[in-house]
């Protein structure tokens, strides 16, 4: 009985922490303006759409991996999945939730685009260092 209560409480807290943590990652990157180059590559101009997330993540995988970014992009990927699940289930019944999930999915895409920009800059630095040496 005790273990069941702990399990339920922990799962509820886990979900709350997960959503807040993912949103804090997004909030920290949302003010970062995208360069014209990344805007061209991703097709994101003013606001991003959730539909573009997979495409941006695919582009992200083409760049050399950075350990400090890996955790963030995995967390946002999981958050995006959770939003997709909400969108396909509960949000069908609650229209305001549908609009909210759409906004959040768009912000996930923007986060991925910002990470892409950082990886491109990192690759450029590495390339420049190789040329120098």
């Amino acid at each position: 009985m005790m273990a069941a209560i702990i399990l339920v409480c922990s799962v509820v807290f886990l979900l709350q922490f997960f959503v807040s943590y993912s949103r804090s990652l997004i909030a920290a990157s949302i003010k970062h303006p995208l360069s014209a180059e990344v805007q061209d590559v991703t097709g994101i101009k003013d606001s991003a759409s959730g539909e573009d997330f997979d495409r941006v993540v695919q582009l992200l995988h083409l760049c050399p991996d950075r350990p400090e970014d890996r955790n963030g992009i995995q967390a946002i990927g999981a958050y995006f999945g959770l939003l997709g699940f909400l969108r396909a289930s509960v949000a069908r019944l609650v229209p305001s939730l549908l609009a909210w999930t759409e906004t959040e999915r768009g912000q996930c895409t923007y986060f991925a685009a910002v990470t892409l920009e950082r990886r491109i800059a990192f690759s450029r630095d590495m390339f420049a260092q190789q040329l120098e040496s």
Partner: protein
Amino acid sequence: MVCALKKGAFRRYLLLNLYMACLLCVELGRYISVSEYGLKSTQFQYFYFYSDAILTIFLYFALCTLYSHVFSEMKAERYVKLGALLLLAGTALFTYAVVQQSSAKLVTHFVVELSQNLYFVGVVLTYVLWGAILKLRETRTRLIQLVLSLGLYFSFLAANYAVRNLYPSLHTVFIPLVQICGIFLPLAWAYAFWRLPEEARLVPARLAVIPR
């Protein structure tokens, strides 16, 4: 730890960094123990659970330092320390009372139970801290991310222990899951130290599941 050192945040978050150093030593010890005696050996099991208990107590105190950061303006450090010690003592007493009734290997079971109970106490304390952050409108992005990632880690481990108690046959699935999850906290903290400057700010009310 390296990220915190490079960004000049080592002393500011001293206990968090010491926990990471301790974690590294324990993981090395576990690796040596498992390669020396094997995964199912008694030596490894003892080392695993005793070191886990020490790490949990360390992480509990690391959480208390995060409390001190959030309540720094109120000069409540003394009360936080006192409260943390009392709660730790209370948890230890409760664990002893539970274990004493039903166990032959008292010390070992006490250590395992204490660790499990502290994970749950850690979840609740982190949740209370998160509530305080929202209430006090704390805006330091790095601190917020450190707290939230710690909350995620604690709640995952508490849930994991609860599942293992409810369904002991599933331990083969959930023990490796703990190892995978164990990577999360160092990476999340590395991200917070490396990517986020100390002066970065955000509005925490926007992060809550139910917007305030």
